[in-house]
């Protein structure tokens, strides 16, 4: 079973990328599970045709007889969709919520299939959000970033978390590569590729900005489902193939802030 986590700055397009990646995997006849690890619980919405599925956390304290069927919902292409959920903004501890979700899924023996895709909240804000990288869950992390400095900054921070966690004897988590979700900036591909190189990794996919993504979203579908013949759908399929073939997993070396800023200036 391949377990893949997508991390990146909030709003960078992790959920869109994750959902399309899961959809592309499903087209390859793989048994796929996608777990949204964000209190916003909108990771799997496009796979579920706009449906907000009940989250694990909103149910686990209400129902003692909770089963895997109550928290796993089948979406497009047979992708099994799970949303961890979490507290409303400004209250409680969302990180603990992620840990509790993983503990429950583990107890239910719900983590199975050919590929599990974890779509994780913007940044590693606490130990809870590092959970997908710990304890042998996701073995490969892909950083989703654009060429914007703050997006690269968030990706760089996640490198620090991977490097830290990889020092543990039980850790199997490594960086699989960097995905550039383009914001249509000048020299963006080159900048992100250079960033990936400097942290000791590779740019595994450049996803161009395309109206097909917006069109699919307003129709509450993934691009793969809504516009299967579109060039954008092909990009996601390419990403899925690249990830499946990828064996180049590394421990990244995060950049110093000065170096990161200098790099961003170089490609302006």
């Amino acid at each position, binding site marked *: 079973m391949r377990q893949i986590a997508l991390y990146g700055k909030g709003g960078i397009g992790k959920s869109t990328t994750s959902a399309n990646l899961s959809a592309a995997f499903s087209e390859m006849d793989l048994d796929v599970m996608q777990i949204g690890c964000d209190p916003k619980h909108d990771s799997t919405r496009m796979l579920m045709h706009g449906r907000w599925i009940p989250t694990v956390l909103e149910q686990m304290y209400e129902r003692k007889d909770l089963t895997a069927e109550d928290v796993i919902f089948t979406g497009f292409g047979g992708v099994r969709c799970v949303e961890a959920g979490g507290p409303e903004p400004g*209250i409680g*501890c969302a990180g603990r919520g992620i840990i509790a979700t993983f503990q429950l899924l583990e107890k239910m023996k719900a983590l199975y299939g050919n590929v599990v895709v974890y779509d994780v909240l913007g940044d590693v804000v606490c130990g809870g959000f590092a959970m997908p990288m710990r304890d042998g869950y996701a073995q490969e992390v892909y950083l989703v970033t654009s060429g914007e400095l703050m997006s690269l900054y968030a990706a760089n921070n996640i490198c620090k978390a991977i490097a830290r966690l990889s020092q543990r004897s039980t850790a199997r988590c490594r960086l699989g590569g960097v995905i550039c979700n383009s914001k249509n900036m000048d020299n963006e591909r080159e900048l992100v590729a250079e960033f990936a190189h400097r942290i000791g990794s590779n740019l595994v996919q450049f996803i161009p900005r395309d109206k097909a993504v917006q069109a699919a979203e307003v129709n509450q579908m993934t691009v793969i489902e809504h516009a299967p013949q579109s060039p954008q759908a092909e990009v996601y399929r390419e990403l899925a193939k690249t990830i499946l073939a990828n064996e180049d997993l590394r421990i990244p070396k995060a950049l110093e802030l000065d170096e990161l800023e200098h790099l961003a200036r170089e490609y302006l």
Partner: protein
Amino acid sequence: MPENIYEARMAGCTLTGALSVACFIPGAVAVVHAPQGCVHQTFSILHAMANESDLWTVPEILVSDISDREVIFGGEERLSATLDTAAAKKPDLIVVVTSCVPETIGDDCGVICSRHPYADRIVYVPTSGFLGGSAKDGENAVLEALATHAPVREPVPGTVALIGEKNLESEADQNYAEVERLLNRLGLRVTVRFCRNCDYATLMQLGTAACFILRDDRAADAGKRIGERFGRPVISEFPHGLSGCLTFLRAAGEACGVVEERIAAAIAEETAYQGSMLEKFANLSGTAVFLGAEPFTGTAEVAREAIARLDMQESTDGFSIRLPFYLPIGTAGVEKMLYLWRRTVNNG
């Protein structure tokens, strides 16, 4: 490695310190916003100490019982519901204290307390120990919060409030009796023992005392602020040792505006009283003793003063005598210590 890794074990839990004050206020309910275990752990300690002090009161404690669910989604509703339960009992006061969890997850306990229909009788004291507090800080935080609840009033001449007597302290009442005896020599009377089983009505009288006397310097910072709030002089601790009693008489007399003649007379009376007390132990004169370990700073100094006054000697070959665990309070404390020594010298 933390610098205070060895000393930290002496600091104790902030919640435990807070509850040692908060749950011994007659007519009040203590609400603890915490997981059950924190309260059980704390109360186990308090219960053991209460047994040792022959104190059989079972305090009214309600716990919000935070669990994983509240950690994830926030515990404010749970606190609110617990306050409802407490308020339904119509207590004189609700004292709300917290364990580490609410502060970690960001529960806004202050707002929940201030918006509750019973808010006028709720005293909220944040006592999350991981922020750097100790048991002492917990005690002081509750003392200060309760003192802030009492109104500022005109002082009644000749009255004194004792602040910070420990409810679970052994010999608390004997120590109180000794301090009261000394104050009586000055014509002063204790009107408030805050919070030695101090009910709400008594607490409200705190501001009428003309002078505040702290139980010990553990409460020095809180005591200073309480004194400033009410505009009263503060004496930092109960008297220890023979000369300490005389110093205390002068300090208390001056703080309360007692005339010099009366202060001098009180000191003379106490000096004579100490002399007659020491005469009872004259047979210890010339005895060599070896002082054991000092449990609290200051005890050895009190002991050495008594040794000097009785013409005893300190020697490693002398009788091994034990220092009192707590600092001896007043002349009576020294007398009790000397009884113990004589028993050791006579009986081994």
